[in-house]
C-alpha cells in the first residue's frame, strides 16, 4: 500500500509543472532531493513537481551507519530525512512503491501500485544489490544479505535460535556483518576467497595486521578458500557450508557479503546504455544515453569508467545532477576512494594510490604485528605523497589524506614511526593548504571550515562532520582554540580555581560566588547549566569544612543540582526515574534481596542487575520515589548515589574467604572503602574495586582507584576507567597495610577533587596534569607539597559529616514536598509516564510521547 506523505493540495496544483521522477530513495536519492530544494526546484516553490518512488518500506536512512543498529540505534535514529522535509517542499514520497517499468518514448514510469507517472526528467538512484555467488543452496532458510534495515531485522530474529554464523566475504561490508554477528552472540566465521582480508582497500601487510587483530577478537577467519555449497539439515534450514579446500564448516546462519552490483535492470529493460560489468553509463553531467534520464549513486557507471561503492562520490553526483537540472554548470569526473572506518573497533584507513601502482613510487612501511599496527605511505619519486594505508592507528588519516598530491614537509618515515623511535611528528592540520578537502563526505575544504569558529556552526553551515564523522577531530583542531580557560560563560576560573576560592573564602552560596567572582556581565544573573552543578558539587564536597549544609538539597543548593540530584534518582527517557540502593561491596543478605524484590513487585518496577554489582529499579514516578525509599530505608538500605558525581560502587571479588586463590579479604576491604567514601561529591563519578589476588576478578584496574591483594598486603592502582576510552589504572604504591592503603586513597581522592576539571575522570586528569603519575605520587606518597595533612583532614571531615540523603529526605515533610508531578495537583500521577510489557516486565511506552518527533541529537560537550 503506497503512502504519500505530501499534502494533496500540492499534487493537484503541481500537475502542470515540469515533473521530476526520482527512482530510489536511498542515501543518494535523499541528497538529490536536498540539492533540488537548495536550488528552489520544488512544488512548494511552484517550480517543479517531484515524485519519489521508494522501494523500501521506510524513507532514506543512513546505510553507512547500518551496523550501529546493533549498538542500540533505532531505525528512526538512522533516518536521513528531517521531519517535515517532504511536506515543506511538497515532495511526493511514495514508500513501498518501486518503479517496475519505464517507457522512454512516452516518458512514463509505472510503479508497482499500478500508477503511472509522466516525467520530464527521470533520475535513477537505485543503488546496488548484494551479489550472492551462485552456489548451490544459496537460498536455503538461514541465508541472508546485509544491505537494508529489513535485512538486519531478519538476521537479528534468526540469530536468536542460532549459535554459529558465517559471513561469505572478508571485505569491508563482510567484516561489518561479522562484527554484527559477533555482537549478536554468535560464534562467527569469515570466509574470504582472496588471500587476505579487505583485498580492495589494503595491501598484504595491512591485511596481515588486520587478520591478527580480528582473530584476537575471537573471530575465525578462513582466507584463500571459496564457498562451494550451503548445506541444509533435515528441517530444511542451513546447517553448514562446504569450502573449496575440501573442508566443511558447521554453521546455523550465512550472510553473503561478496560485493555489490549496480541495480541497472530498469535501465537495461528500456534500452539505456549500461557497462559491460553493469552500471548505467553516464556522462560528466550524470546524464544517461537518454538526455531526459540521469543516473546517480551506486547504480551509475561514471564518466571515468568506475562504479563508486562509496557514499561521498554518490553525493557529488547528486549535486551535479541537481545542478544540471536547475540549468547550472556542473560535472562529476571522478572522486577519490579514500576511506576511514572503524571496523570491529579497529581503525582502518586507505587513501589515494594505496596499492602503489604509480610508476617508480616507493613505500615507507612501519609494521608492529604485536599491537596490530600497520602504516604505509606511498611516495612518488619527487617526494609527493601519493597515498597510504593505516591499520590499527589511523589518527593521521585526517591530515595525511588532504596532503595527498603535495610534497610532505617532513621525512615520511617520521610520520609512520611510533613515538620514541624518531617519530611521530604530528603534522598539524595548520600545515594543510586551504584547498585541502577536510570532510570528504561533503567535500568541504579547510578554507571553508576556517570561515567558522565553532563546531556546531561548521556542521550547520557546511555539513562537514555530519557524514561518517571521521573528520570531526581535525575540524576541532582547525577552529580557533580558546585562550579562555574559564569554566563557562559565567566564570573566568577553572573548576580547581573555584574549589580553592570556595575553600579559602569559605563561600557557601552559589549566588555569592557568582556575584563576587563571576564574569562581570554574569554577575547578578542566573548562572548556567554548566557552573551551577559544578559549584553545587564543590560546595557539597567541602560542606563540613566550609560550614555549608551537608544536605545537597537545602536552600539554594537545591536549585544548583541537575534533575538527577534534585530528585535523588536518575531520569529515564520517558520522564520516570530509576532507583539504585547502595549494596556495599556487592555483598547482600537474602533478606535484603527479598525486600528489593518485594518493592519492585509492589511498584511494578523493571528490575535489572547492573554492571556495578547492584540492582537498578526502573520506572518510578516522581511521586512514588519517597514511598519506595521509605520501604528501602526501613529495610536498612541507603542511597547508592547512582545519580551523583560521587562514589558509585566498590566492586569486590569473593576473595580469600571462599576462593582457593585469594590472599586477602577483598570483600571486607571493598565494604570498608565503599562505606568510607559513600556520598563524596567529586568532579566526576568515582568507581573502585578490590580483587583478592592477581587474577583480578573484580576488574580493579578498570577503576578510578583499584586495589589488588598481594601476599604482603595491597597494591593500589589509580586512574583506570571503562567507558568510551578505557584505560588501565597505574600502580601507585605496593604492599600497603590496611591503614596505609586507606590513608593513601584519602589523599589521592582529595587531591583529585581539588585539582580536576569539571567532568574529568581520574584517568584524563592523570594524563593531563603536569608531571602525570610521578607528580601525583610525589604529592600523595612523598608529600612534596606539604598538603597531605590537609587532604587527610578534609577526608576525615567528609567521613564524619556523611548522612544518608534519602533517610534525611523521607523524614522531613518540607523536603518531601518537591516529590509531586504537578504543583497544583499533587495527587495526580504523571499521565505521560506509562509502560508496556516487555519480557515479563515493563518498558516505557514511548508511543504516548510521540508527537512531531525531532531527530535526537545530544549537544556537544554535555556529558551527563
Amino acid at each position, binding site marked *: 500500500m503506497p503512502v504519500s506523505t505530501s499534502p494533496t493540495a500540492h499534487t493537484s496544483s503541481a500537475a502542470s509543472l515540469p515533473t521530476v521522477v526520482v527512482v530510489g530513495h536511498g542515501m543518494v536519492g535523499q541528497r538529490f532531493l536536498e540539492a533540488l530544494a537548495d536550488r528552489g526546484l520544488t512544488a512548494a516553490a511552484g517550480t517543479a513537481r517531484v515524485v519519489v518512488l521508494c522501494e523500501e518500506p521506510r524513507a532514506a536512512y543512513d546505510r553507512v551507519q547500518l551496523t550501529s543498529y546493533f549498538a542500540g540505534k533505532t531505525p528512526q535514529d538512522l533516518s536521513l530525512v528531517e521531519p517535515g522535509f517532504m511536506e515543506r517542499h511538497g515532495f511526493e514520497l511514495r514508500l513501498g512503491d518501486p518503479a517496475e517499468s519505464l517507457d522512454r518514448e512516452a516518458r512514463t514510469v509505472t510503479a508497482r501500485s499500478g500508477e503511472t507517472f509522466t516525467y520530464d526528467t527521470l533520475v535513477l538512484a537505485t543503488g546496488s544489490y548484494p551479489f550472492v555467488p551462485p552456489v548451490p543452496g544459496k537460498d536455503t532458510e538461514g541465508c541472508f544479505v546485509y544491505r537494508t534495515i529489513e535485512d538486519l531485522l531478519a538476521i537479528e530474529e534468526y540469530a536468536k535460535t542460532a549459535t554459529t554464523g558465517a559471513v561469505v566475504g572478508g571485505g569491508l561490508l563482510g567484516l561489518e556483518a561479522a562484527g554484527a554477528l559477533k555482537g549478536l552472540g554468535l560464534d562467527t566465521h569469515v570466509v574470504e576467497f582472496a588471500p587476505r582480508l579487505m583485498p580492495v582497500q589494503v595491501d598484504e601487510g595491512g591485511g596481515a595486521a588486520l587478520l591478527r587483530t580480528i582473530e584476537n577478537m575471537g573471530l575465525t577467519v578462513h582466507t584463500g578458500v571459496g564457498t562451494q555449497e550451503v548445506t541444509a539439515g533435515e528441517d530444511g534450514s542451513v546447517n553448514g557450508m562446504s569450502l573449496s579446500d575440501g573442508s566443511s564448516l558447521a554453521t546455523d546462519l550465512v550472510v553473503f557479503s561478496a560485493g555489490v552490483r549496480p541495480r541497472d535492470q530498469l535501465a537495461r529493460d528500456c534500452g539505456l546504455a549500461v557497462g559491460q560489468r553493469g552500471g548505467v553509463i553516464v556522462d560528466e553531467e550524470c546524464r544517461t544515453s537518454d538526455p531526459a534520464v540521469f543516473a546517480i549513486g551506486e547504480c551509475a557507471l561514471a564518466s571515468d569508467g568506475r562504479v563508486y561503492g562509496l557514499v561521498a562520490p554518490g553525493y557529488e553526483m547528486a549535486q551535479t545532477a541537481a545542478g544540471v537540472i536547475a540549468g547550472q554548470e556542473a560535472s562529476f569526473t571522478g572522486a577519490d576512494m579514500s576511506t576511514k572506518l572503524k571496523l570491529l573497533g579497529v581503525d582502518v584507513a586507505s587513501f589515494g594510490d594505496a596499492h602503489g601502482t604509480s610508476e617508480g613510487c616507493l613505500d615507507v612501511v612501519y609494521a608492529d604485528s604485536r599491537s596490530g599496527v600497520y602504516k604505509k605511505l606511498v611516495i612518488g619519486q619527487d617526494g609527493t605523497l601519493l597515498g597510504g594505508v593505516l591499520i590499527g592507528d589511523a589518527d593521521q588519516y585526517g591530515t595525511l589524506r588532504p596532503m595527498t598530491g603535495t610534497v610532505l614537509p617532513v621525512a615520511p618515515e617520521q610520520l609512520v614511526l611510533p613515538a620514541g623511535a624518531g617519530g611521530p611528528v604530528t603534522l598539524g592540520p595548520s600545515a594543510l593548504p586551504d584547498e585541502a578537502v577536510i570532510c570528504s563526505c561533503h567535500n568541504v575544504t579547510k578554507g571553508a571550515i576556517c570561515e567558522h569558529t565553532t563546531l556546531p556552526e561548521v556542521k550547520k553551515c557546511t555539513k562537514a562532520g555530519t557524514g561518517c564523522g571521521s573528520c570531526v577531530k581535525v575540524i576541532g583542531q582547525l577552529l580557533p582554540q580558546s585562550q579562555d580557560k574559564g569554566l563557562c560563560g559565567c566564570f573566568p576560573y577553572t573548576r580547581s580555581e573555584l574549589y580553592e576560592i570556595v575553600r579559602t573564602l569559605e563561600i557557601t552560596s552559589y549566588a555569592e560566588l557568582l556575584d563576587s567572582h563571576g564574569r562581570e556581565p554574569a554577575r547578578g544573573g542566573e*548562572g*548556567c547549566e554548566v557552573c551551577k552543578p559544578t559549584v553545587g558539587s564543590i560546595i557539597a564536597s567541602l560542606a563540613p569544612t566550609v560550614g555549608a549544609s551537608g544536605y545537597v538539597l537545602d536552600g539554594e543548593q537545591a536549585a544548583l543540582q541537575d534533575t538527577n540530584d*534534585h530528585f535523588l534518582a536518575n531520569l529515564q527517557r520517558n520522564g520516570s526515574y530509576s532507583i539504585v540502593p547502595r549494596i556495599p561491596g556487592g555483598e547482600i543478605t537474602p533478606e535484603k534481596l527479598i525486600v528489593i524484590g518485594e518493592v519492585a513487585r509492589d511498584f511494578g518496577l523493571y528490575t535489572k542487575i547492573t554492571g556495578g554489582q547492584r540492582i537498578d529499579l526502573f520506572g518510578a514516578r516522581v511521586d512514588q520515589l519517597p514511598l519506595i525509599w521509605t520501604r528501602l530505608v526501613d529495610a536498612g538500605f541507603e542511597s547508592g548515589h547512582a545519580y551523583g558525581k560521587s562514589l558509585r560502587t566498590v566492586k569486590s571479588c569473593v576473595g580469600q574467604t571462599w576462593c582457593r586463590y585469594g590472599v586477602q579479604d577483598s570483600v571486607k576491604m571493598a565494604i570498608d572503602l565503599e562505606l568510607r567514601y559513600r556520598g563524596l561529591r567529586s568532579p566526576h563519578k568515582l568507581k573502585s574495586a578490590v580483587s583478592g589476588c592477581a587474577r583480578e576478578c573484580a576488574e580493579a584496574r578498570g577503576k578510578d582507584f583499584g586495589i589488588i591483594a598481594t601476599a604482603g598486603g595491597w597494591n593500589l592502582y589509580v586512574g583506570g576507567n571503562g567507558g568510551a576510552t578505557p584505560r588501565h589504572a597505574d600502580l601507585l604504591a605496593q604492599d600497603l597495610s590496611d591503614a596505609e592503603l586507606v590513608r593513601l586513597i584519602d589523599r589521592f581522592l582529595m587531591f583529585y577533587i581539588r585539582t580536576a576539571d569539571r567532568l574529568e575522570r581520574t584517568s584524563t586528569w592523570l594524563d593531563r596534569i603536569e608531571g602525570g603519575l610521578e607528580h601525583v605520587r610525589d604529592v600523595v606518597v612523598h608529600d612534596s607539597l606539604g598538603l597531605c595533612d590537609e587532604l587527610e583532614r578534609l577526608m576525615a571531615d567528609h567521613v564524619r559529616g556523611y548522612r544518608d540523603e534519602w533517610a534525611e529526605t523521607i523524614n522531613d515533610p518540607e523536603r518531601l514536598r518537591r516529590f509531586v508531578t*504537578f504543583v497544583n495537583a499533587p495527587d495526580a500521577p*504523571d499521565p505521560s509516564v506509562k509502560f508496556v510489557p516487555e519480557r515479563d516486565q515493563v518498558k516505557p511506552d514511548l508511543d504516548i510521547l510521540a508527537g512531531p518527533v*525531532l531527530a535526537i541529537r545530544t549537544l556537544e560537550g554535555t556529558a551527563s
Partner: protein
Amino acid sequence: MTTQAMETAQDTRVIRLAAGDDWLTVCDRSLLTPGRGVAALLPDGRQVALFVDRAGRAYAIDNRDPFTGAYVLSRGLVGSDRGQPFVASPLLKQRFDLATGACLDDDEVSVPVFEVRAD
C-alpha cells in the same frame, strides 16, 4: 532583588496562568525555588513548566521536551545567556529561552509559552 527576600515565608504572592479569558490560580509563589521549575496541570490536560528567576520574575513554557517527547522541561536547570533566562532540558540538554520558548540550540525548534503572573 535579593534572593533572601524571595525565599521568606512572608511571600504571599500567588502564581496565575492565563486560561482563556480567566487567570487560573496555580500555587503560592513560595512553593517555587528561584532557579528551579515545577510542572502544573491545566484543566485541558496540558502540562506547563513554571519557573522563577533570582529576581522573582515568573515564566511559563510547555513542559514537553520536543526533542524526546518526555514531559520534563520543568525539571531542567535555569540559567541566563546575556541576560536572557533559559532552561536546559534535563534529558539531552538543549536550552529553551524562557521568555520566547525558542530553542537556543536549534533555530527550527521552539516550545509554546504561556502568560503568567505572580502577584
